[in-house]
């Protein structure tokens, strides 16, 4: 099964990387507002079903992939994989 984990800085947490990227886009002439930069983790995992995969992925996020004090996460499982 293939899955994607999106990790984002929580609202209100300073994201200097997002600010720098937003500034650069505006300098290039794009009409861009607030810009936030997170992290994307693509992985393959063994799981009997989607429900099992989801709970496994959530454990991965809580234990390692995200620091939930400052980051939120979202799990996406590729359907049909």
């Amino acid at each position, binding site marked *: 099964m293939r899955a994607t984990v999106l990790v984002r*800085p929580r609202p209100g*947490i*300073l994201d*200097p*990387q997002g600010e*720098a990227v937003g500034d650069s886009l505006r300098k290039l002439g794009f009409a861009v507002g607030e810009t936030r930069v997170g*992290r994307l983790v693509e992985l393959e995992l063994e799981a009997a079903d989607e429900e099992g995969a989801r709970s496994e992925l959530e454990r991965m996020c809580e234990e*390692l*992939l995200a*620091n939930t*004090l*400052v980051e939120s996460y979202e799990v996406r499982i590729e359907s049909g994989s």
Partner: protein
Amino acid sequence: MRRSSPRIAIIVFPGSNDERDAACALRALGAEPRLVWHAERALGDVSAVVLPGGFSYGDYLRAGAIARFSPAMGAVRDFAASGGIVLGICNGFQILCEAGLLPGALRPNASLSFVCRDVSLRVERADTPFTARCRPGQALTIPVKHGEGSFVLEDGAACAEQVVLRYEAGDNPNGAFDDIAAVVNGKGNVMGLMPHPEHAVDTLLGSADGVFILGSLVDAACEREPAPTAA
């Protein structure tokens, strides 16, 4: 009678790079440093633990995120839980936050630049094992060198009492919340700080103010040394 030179463990992770400076500084202050490889499950008979600066496990994912799972960290966690004194410097601070032994988290510097310079600090608490040689309000000059030192707290008010050092107003090098440079845990036996006291123990290197911190640690470790068995 206490041993005159307390044994202090310095945990060495792959990617640590300040363990020798820490050992050198602690030895100069009368301690007996012992380098402990991260794969060790026991710290041995020590009276304090230092987590040194560096880039443990490449700091992949987030600074300190992977190091906290190393075998030695299990021993550090037990040592802290039993009241043992633990000091995390820079990357060590990041590891202690990731491990949940200290509140908060360290995010990339607001400037996005790696900062390497002396900073002016103010002692907020002199009643910890890490600052007993200081007086409240004392000014210290100690260098920082980091890219992820912007301290963030979920609930600043709840942790106000745990702030030990602040950057002087206008000298915050990383955008840390409330100018926080060092915090202790609730019990006061675990501290993390972004500045590097081990790089400031000799005026030849610009400042010897790091001695106030590491000297306090050595004093506290001395007090915790077990009485020697009859020999």
